[in-house]
């Protein structure tokens, strides 16, 4: 049996072994996790696994035994993205918003270890989050809290 913690829930996973974490999370209606590519290239499906950013389309649920998985819904509920969210809104960093949950996940991971990142650290962090709307200009600005 695979056990892991997902947001505030303890999960005992007994489902289909070939399922990716992205498929699983969307199937239980954690819709902040988005599909964009399934090759691990776009970052729309980003989640935190033990504080690190992962593309959930590239991990099998099977491999998560003992891990802590956090999605944007949970970070939002905890208030951990409040400041970032406000800044994204204020700076106009959200256009279609499809990439935004992934970007925020990446930034939360960064902020957990570095609360004053500079522009290049922010760019490095967002390098795995493809955005086709903003040219990254305003998201990078917004992340400089």
């Amino acid at each position, binding site marked *: 049996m695979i056990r892991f913690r997902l947001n505030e829930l303890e999960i005992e996973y007994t489902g289909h072994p070939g399922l990716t974490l992205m498929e699983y999370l969307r199937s239980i209606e954690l819709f902040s996790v988005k599909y964009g590519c399934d090759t691990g290239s776009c970052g729309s499906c980003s989640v935190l696994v033990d504080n690190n950013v992962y593309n959930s389309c590239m991990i099998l649920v099977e491999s998560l035994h003992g891990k802590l998985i956090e999605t944007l819904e949970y970070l939002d509920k905890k208030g951990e*993205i409040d400041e970032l969210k406000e800044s994204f809104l204020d700076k106009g960093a959200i256009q279609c918003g499809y990439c935004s949950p992934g970007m925020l996940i990446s930034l939360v991971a960064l902020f957990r270890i570095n609360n004053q990142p500079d522009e290049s650290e922010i760019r490095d962090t967002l390098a795995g989050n493809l955005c086709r709307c903003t040219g990254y200009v305003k998201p990078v600005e917004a992340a400089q809290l």
Partner: protein
Amino acid sequence: MKVVGKKTQRVDGKALASGKPVFADDIPKKDFLYLKLLYSPIAHGKIKNIDISKALALEGVAAVLTHKDFKPHYYTTAGQGYPEPSPRDTMIFNPVVRFVGDKVAVIAAESIEIAKKALELIEVDYTEYPAIFDPEKSKDNEVVLHPEIKNDPFLFDAQRNLASRITAEYGDPENAFDSSKYVFEGEYSTPYAQQAHIEPHITLTWLDEHERLIIRTATQVPFHVRRIVGEVLDFPISRIRVIKPRIGGGFGSKQEILNEEICAAVTLKTGRPSRIELTRKEEFFAARSRHPQKVRIKMGFDEKLKITAIDLNILENSGAYGSHALTVMSVTSQKVLSLYKAPNFRVHADAVYTNLPIAGAYRGYGAPQGFFALECLMDEIAIKLQVDPFELRIKNFFKEGDEIPIASILGEGREGFKMILHTTGIKECLHRGKELMGWDDEKKRLNQGEIKQGVGLAAVCQGSGIPGIDMAAAFIKMNEDASFNLMVGAADIGTGSDTALAQIAAEVLEVSVDKIIVYSSDTDLTPFDTGAYASSTVFVSGGAVKKAAEKLRLQILDQGQKLLDDPNAILEKGKVTTGKKSLSYEEICTKSFYTEFQMQPMATASHLSYDSPPPFNATFADVSVDTETGIVTVNKIVSVSDCGQIINPKMAEGQAEGAIPQSIGMALSEYMIFDKKGRAINTDFDSYHIYTAIDMPEIVAEFVHTSDPTGPFGAKAVAEIPINGPAPAIANAIYNACGVRIRELPITPEKILRGLGKI
């Protein structure tokens, strides 16, 4: 103005930033069938035999549909106004396949895994036909892609593989070239490129409790989806409801009826809710891309360097079907001829079929291809004549008050409408851009060793909606807390148009934006709108919103006057006042609902414009070329636009900042590659490189102010214009840096090295 032009947060921003379930696929999917498409593995051929029995027998497969399940019916997948000016050359499934990726069958199963398994169980025998991959060889080839189509008014000549043709002439170009002091000519080409919105095409369909077909889909054109699905499936429009939720980007690719008809067909056949989502790989070959064009421009000049004549020749590759074939190259022609005043011109444009993926709408819609040619040629001319590139352009721009003759000659698949240029800020754009770029600081540029730095510029224009065709409507009603429901057909596809339209309504009604509750694009609940394309939303839909809000404002005033019993009372700052007595909106609406002069304050309006004022832009590029490796690095892009009155400054900047990397991509890194059999090779984000946060150059996006009399509050369009300039500016900067002129995009290191004579 209090709201228009002022900083305003997106009305949908909070939900988006919190990852709330607002996109098409973000709904529970109980009992849904999952759809997968079977695509043709060959570029051209006929299905001799197709056996679906094994697939159907697989447990969990609910339906398999092929061409045998549908009456032959031709339509176009282009989501355009009716009648669509694109060839009707497409069937939902066709026994003849015309490119690797043509749809052969759909499987509907209880899960995606089962559907995928079932795909492998369909057996198809093909008779292979020879294929055409080179657009230069398509016209009058003995291989004919659509020999069976006769009498379609929008297919130019099926027997000759000519999907569309445009010819136009003004003045006497022949003579003008003969008597010109200088004549220059150049040929330029652009490749297949992908819109690459991050949300793929996704459609969900189901039958509601009244057996009506609900289509929840990522589309730019909900009303066209309703009409075309109704037509293809012979199903009454009255029983179709199309819902457009939040959309994860479209850029033209979702101006297409791509899978809605197939998903709906499965639902109608099985009675089950159905879902179809393209994988990223499928997006690359089965969705749409930018029409590759070869553009030849000839320009004549007199001794004062005024343009005497322009000859424009376009060969467009439409791919296997003609979606948007005519109108894209018509926009190429219109826009190229709307920037500089040419007293004589000629246009000849052919769109040909090839056995390659289908091209379609992509931000800029033909203009990027045209301006790549025009602005590179202008650069070459300035260099050859040793004249200032600014002066050469400024001398020839259309001026305010000028008529732009191409507008009346060439419309959207028919004649156009007379257009007078009311406002142009192109000169200011050039001047401001020059300053921001530090154009004259030549000394600061590196020019030693193998790294050469250079700068380039391009001047461009676009339109604001399709004149005389794009129609939008709005409905607005008042609530007793002085909030307003604004219902618009306009499709916000991530551009922020809901917010811009709310700002327009708020400005007219003198309330704050949070008092406007926007609901957009639901064919049951909102009025009609042609859709989000041709940069039309703020200009056309905004016009409708402004009119509706003005009508409602009059109604509120009228109610207020009656309630105050004073016909001279005026409306100001959210109340109606006689000077002594006043009534707030809340009081007026509450009384109107419940006690006196009872009625619902509400208004509707439709808007259509015969003007399509061009927004203008000047784009500057600063690049470094490594002459050892041929690698080009873009250091900085400056983009200055004249889009009339800006409604929302941050969103307008955002449009430019997003369009720029798409064009840099088209110049340097984004192009689809096909193998000898016509198979798309680079079908993922690793091999088709779109710009990431660490690849980006410095971006400066600014606007100069004009106020166009034809747009709401003086607005012109914003969405497409900034995509036209970067590619030619980069090509010109590369020449400036290292003397290599590349006329064929993409600009690869190999081409640079060849240009330098190093390989």
